[in-house]
């Protein structure tokens, strides 16, 4: 149980081991630990960020949806209004057109009535003239009494 040169040998071994550990073992393992720590932290941060962004997007989407709904209802309203307007307007024009047609028809009827009257009058005049002619043919010279005849004809018209 004495101290001997083993001591020196052990010190050399120890020094070698420490040197090796310091040079080749500790740095890579420790670095990988640190790197993983960083990776995990980054991942967590990214996840949090992603969640936040998702929330934002959701909010935005709801906003857009709401706006779209508003717009669509506005459009529907406008269309309804326009349709009523169009219906009203067409009713108006239809009525006007109807009135006009009635007027035209009335005028036509009047005209036709006048024409019929004229025709009848002419026929009556011709008939009367022929009757008078036949009655008077014996005693009245047509050329002599031309004036009177045309006067009568005019009065009949």
């Amino acid at each position: 149980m004495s101290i001997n040169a083993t001591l020196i040998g052990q010190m050399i071994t120890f020094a070698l081991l420490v040197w090796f550990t310091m040079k080749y073992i500790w740095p890579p393992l420790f670095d990988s630990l640190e790197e993983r720590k960083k990776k995990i932290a980054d991942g967590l941060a990214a996840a949090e960020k992603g969640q936040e962004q998702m929330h934002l997007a959701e909010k935005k989407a709801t906003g857009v949806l709401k706006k779209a709904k508003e717009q669509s209802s506005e459009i529907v309203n406008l269309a309804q209004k326009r349709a009523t307007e169009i219906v009203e307007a067409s009713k108006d024009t239809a009525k006007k057109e109807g009135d006009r047609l009635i007027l035209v028809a009335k005028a036509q009827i009047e005209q036709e009535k006048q024409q019929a009257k004229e025709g009848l009058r002419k026929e009556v005049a011709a008939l009367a003239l022929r009757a008078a002619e036949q009655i008077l043919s014996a005693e009245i010279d047509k050329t002599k009494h031309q004036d009177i005849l045309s006067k009568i004809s005019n009065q009949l018209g």
Partner: protein
Amino acid sequence: MATEVHAAEGATGYIIHHLTPLTVGEGFWALNLDTLFFSAVLGGLFVWFFKMAADKATAGVPGLVQNFAEMLIEFVDNQVKDSFHGKNELIAPLALTIFCWVFLWNFMDLFPVDILPLVGSLMGIEYLRVVPSTDLNATFAMSISVFCLIIFYSIKIKGPWGFAKELMFQPFGPWLLPFNLLLKLVEEIAKPISLALRLFGNLYAGELIFILIALLPWYIQPVLSFPWAIFHILIITLQAFIFMVLTIVYLGMAHEDH
């Protein structure tokens, strides 16, 4: 001290035989081959395992080996961060080496006391003491190395004059200079001695008790050696841990400028 009486027979002879190292050479230049061999093999084991882990080290999902290595690295790193506040690239690897190496030394204690000497005797080796930490040379080699580092860093950080001032003027001021010096020297020298003797004493005693149990009749042996082995698992880890932590603390003190 044991070499002269190894011829003794009976229980004493058995015990002495088990605690006698395999030595070549005489006097100071003698070498305890078993201590050198086993500590080198265990050191190689430690380095091989960690090198394997370090080569495959990845920041992604770690494998089993890397996981275990990282567990130890993190454990040692926490200890270093707790008791050492300076910046030094050496301390943490040093602490890891001490912890693992001492643990493996001590672990040899858990092999049944007769197995490896039996294998040795079959190969014609008469004496074989398999636990390096039952050799004062091994424990002192480590504690003296640590002591040298303490002195080196004390001088490096505080400067030669600063270190000398600390030795002379603390803790009682310049008027009690010789007393201070004596106190400080004892304090400094006590560090490596207590480190080495604590580890040596614990493991030597533990090994001795295993040997004593091995002397009992076979039917009693398991009843005693099983609980002692279980208890020893705690001891060997604790001793490795204490050696490491005290090394960190001492080097931390060497780095602190008053």
